[in-house]
């Protein structure tokens, strides 16, 4: 087990480095950081001056390792677009995104798990069909459009929720529904097939034969075995949420990391964009690692 965890950890670390490397090179070769600092109308001499002043004329590998070293010592660089250290920007914006990610995963759990359970308990019934059509629709709905539709219904036509903003938890309800919807299909499908497998297994038949039935059977025996893989898939989905927050935060004007990413891209703010790609990749990698470890803990066959 320890060997498995160590192996996975090393691979994750290597992936994180590769991504930081690729992102940094891509952004610094195909765009001119000096030009970005100087602005659109800068003269050639000004750009050249900035190039030497900020050290953009040094080899790209030197700059990459300097940047990477900066990340480890907490110096994330300075955003020319926001005129702030990127680290400060991240600290300001991260709470909103974390809040949104956690709330949207709660929405997913509240919708997908009951639907999956009921679908598995009554296969091929109306409930099962309904759950399946919810999954199929949720997969086809464009996230940003769902957000706008919810605003039209619940903020414009019936003013129940605020249109946009991030001041109170109330502001986060519609965005969480939007972001949570995209994770409903995989979680629901897994819950359904997992529980169906368990229900058809020998030990449940034995439990049934000695007189367990109904809810007691499901909650006490079946669910316990079906719910563990769900936890790992939810961890993966939580990793997705940070990257997925970009669209939702832009639609609802939440000042989180996702909106910061979009605005920085539009403002050609390379220092912020490259850190954000790295941060989103790291969160994804960490949650995936957790999920892998959990799966391996549950199923020794995966520890090879």
């Amino acid at each position: 087990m320890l060997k498995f965890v160590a192996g996975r950890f090393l691979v994750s670390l290597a992936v994180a480095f590769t991504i930081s490397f690729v992102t940094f090179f891509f952004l610094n070769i195909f765009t001119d950081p000096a030009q970005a600092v100087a602005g659109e109308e800068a003269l050639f001499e000004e750009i050249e001056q900035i190039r030497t002043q900020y050290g953009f004329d040094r080899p790209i590998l030197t700059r990459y390792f300097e940047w990477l070293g900066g990340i480890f010592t907490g110096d994330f660089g300075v955003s020319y677009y926001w005129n702030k250290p990127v680290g400060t920007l991240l600290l300001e914006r991260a709470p909103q995104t974390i809040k949104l990610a956690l709330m949207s995963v709660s929405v997913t759990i509240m919708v997908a798990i009951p639907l999956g359970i009921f679908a598995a308990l009554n296969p091929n019934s109306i409930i099962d069909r309904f759950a399946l059509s919810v999954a199929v629709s949720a997969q086809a709905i464009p996230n940003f459009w769902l957000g706008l539709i919810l605003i039209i219904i619940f903020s414009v036509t019936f003013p129940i929720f605020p249109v946009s903003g991030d001041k109170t938890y109330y502001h986060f309800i519609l965005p969480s529904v939007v972001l949570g919807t995209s994770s409903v299909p995989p979680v629901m499908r897994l819950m359904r097939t997992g529980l169906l497998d368990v229900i058809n297994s020998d030990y449940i038949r034995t439990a049934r034969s000695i007189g367990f039935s109904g809810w007691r059977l499901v909650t006490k025996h079946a669910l316990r075995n079906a719910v563990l893989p769900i936890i790992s898939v939810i961890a993966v989905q939580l990793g997705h949420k940070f990257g997925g927050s970009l669209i939702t935060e832009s639609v609802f004007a939440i000042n989180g990391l996702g909106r910061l990413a979009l605005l920085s891209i539009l403002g050609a703010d390379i220092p912020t964009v490259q850190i954000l790609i790295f941060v989103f990749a790291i969160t994804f990698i960490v949650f995936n690692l957790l999920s892998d470890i959990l799966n391996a803990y549950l199923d020794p066959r995966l520890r090879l």
Partner: protein
Amino acid sequence: MILKYIFRHTNPDFLNRDLEKLTPKDIMFRKAIYHSGFKFGLLLLSTITFIGVFVPFFVDMSPYDQDISKRLLPPVWSEGGSWQYIFGTDGNGRDYLARIIYGTRVSLTIGIGAATVGMLIGVTLGVIAGYFGGIVDQVVSYILTCQLALPGILFLLTIISIVGSSLTVVILVIGVLHWTLFLVVTRAATQRIRNLDYITAANAIGARKTNIIFTDIIPNVLNQIIVIFTLEVGVAILAEATISFLGLGIQPPTPSWGVLIAEGKEAIFFQPWLIILPGIALFLLVISINMLGDGLRDITDPNTSIE
């Protein structure tokens, strides 16, 4: 010929024939006849494609002609609407129905184009990794792991903002970021097939590696590739709409549905149909493609039963 085939397969004699007497193709066709999701998806997709691709040839309409005196006319079912502009007009006085219909072409072009690019990358890497194994396989798996960890939309937007946006760029970039499913499926299938007797036999008679790959391996994973391709068209269409909505994909005045929704966002309080209508078009197109893909998976899977 197709009609003859359909006729032969739908007549009662054939439908009552024993399963043992059917060829695998016959079984697939019979599964298709009984698969309601597949039929629904196919019907809806054909309808949308017909309207989007062929109707503009016969009906006189333009998605670009502006008439400032006819700005923001409501659609026909609400008060003040007229049959001249069935879906009303947008903020520049353009026929909204025409813009939505022409948007189908943009979505389909990008969906099919990007899925093709993704397929070329994924299938090539998958066959190489599965067939050669060893260190090659490990390298490809590592690339896959890295690709999966990349924050998709953010990376997509970053690349497009640097390279500059055009139809070709959008297709290429979405395709380059959506090949992982193709890789996983082809790699697994190639690994499975590689050790079968008939590949050994082909090797023994001295067949070239490229020949083995193209004549013995690819045809055997083709069904799965088609299924993934269909589903990826849907994914690519959604990705295009998303980046166009955020302002970094297809640029106005090209009638991409993402662009239409972004333009409609300005009028969210008073003209909500400008957002609702293109979104419904997008939803219907993607859901029809997904149902077709899911249906194809069931039909081509030899382990599922008929009905």
